[in-house]
């Protein structure tokens, strides 16, 4: 029989955090300054506009292949959206959007096992992680993105080793815009694949 333990109320989470930080400080580890610095970075530097600049560069740089850049395909075909494209799967066929049989594809990201940081709250919630891999179309619709049935949805599951970014399709009316202006229209949610631009 284990010894009965005194019932002790769990300390509030902020007190636990302070305790961890203070205990490390007491070990002679300079923690406070590093925490301040990384807090600043997480809020001011690791921001979605970094991704927006990458997207804008891919849109305007002719060196980036169309499939990777998510440009509107040149050939006619159907007018359905190729909303977003992710890198081709390892070893798989990744040609979408500019082949003879154009594939109407929408990419969406999830971190099924964990989380991203600093990601939007809903991305880290249990609901999104559990459901988007099983009923992606329903989840996207609930989030305001109603994709036509002919659009295939592919969910890219981030792992500890691999992170993805969706390269959204450039809106037609922005063709020819300067890179700075393009970068400003890119949203975090479009780079996750739950919204269009």
């Amino acid at each position, binding site marked *: 029989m284990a010894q009965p333990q005194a019932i002790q109320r769990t300390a509030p989470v902020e007190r636990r*955090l302070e305790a961890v930080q203070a205990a490390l400080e007491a070990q002679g580890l300079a923690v406070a300054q590093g925490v301040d610095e990384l807090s600043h970075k997480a809020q001011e530097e690791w921001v979605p506009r970094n991704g927006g600049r990458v997207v804008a560069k891919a849109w305007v740089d002719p060196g980036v292949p169309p499939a990777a850049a998510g440009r509107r395909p040149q050939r006619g075909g159907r007018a359905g959206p190729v909303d977003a494209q992710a890198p081709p799967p390892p070893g798989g066929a990744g040609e979408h959007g500019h082949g003879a049989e154009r594939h109407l594809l929408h990419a969406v990201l999830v971190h099924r096992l964990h989380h991203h940081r600093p990601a939007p709250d809903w991305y880290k919630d249990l609901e999104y992680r559990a459901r988007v891999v099983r009923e992606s179309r329903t989840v996207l619709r609930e989030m305001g993105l109603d994709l036509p049935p002919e659009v295939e949805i592919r969910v890219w599951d981030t792992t500890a080793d691999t992170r993805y970014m969706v390269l959204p399709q450039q809106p037609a009316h922005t063709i020819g815009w300067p890179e700075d202006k393009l970068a400003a229209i890119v949203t975090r949610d479009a780079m996750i694949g739950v919204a269009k631009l």
Partner: protein
Amino acid sequence: MDGIHDLGGKQGFGRVRYTLDAPAFHAPWEVRANALYGHAVRLGLFNMDEYRHAIERMEPRHYLTAGYYERTLTSVATLIVEKGLVSRQELEERAGGAVPLAAPSAPGRGNLPQRETLPAR
């Protein structure tokens, strides 16, 4: 281990609480918890794989009810105790209450009969 963290495809969850321009943090302590974890990795107290593993080892009920940054904090607290940097008692004294930690690392579940897993008497 097929832990509680492996949520993909689990059924019964409700709507995603989606808002436009959703924040990553809701309180200053969340920013600090996130930064503390990053800084601890930078100091070499533990690595990111250990950090993730400690979250995966959280007691399932605690995992499901803790928010994202409470899981972060629980992992950090667990690892610094396991590595002998601080004691759980010290953390609990400083916090003025219990500090729940993740369960110890253990091999995956087996299905051996009990007579093969208990030490011989």
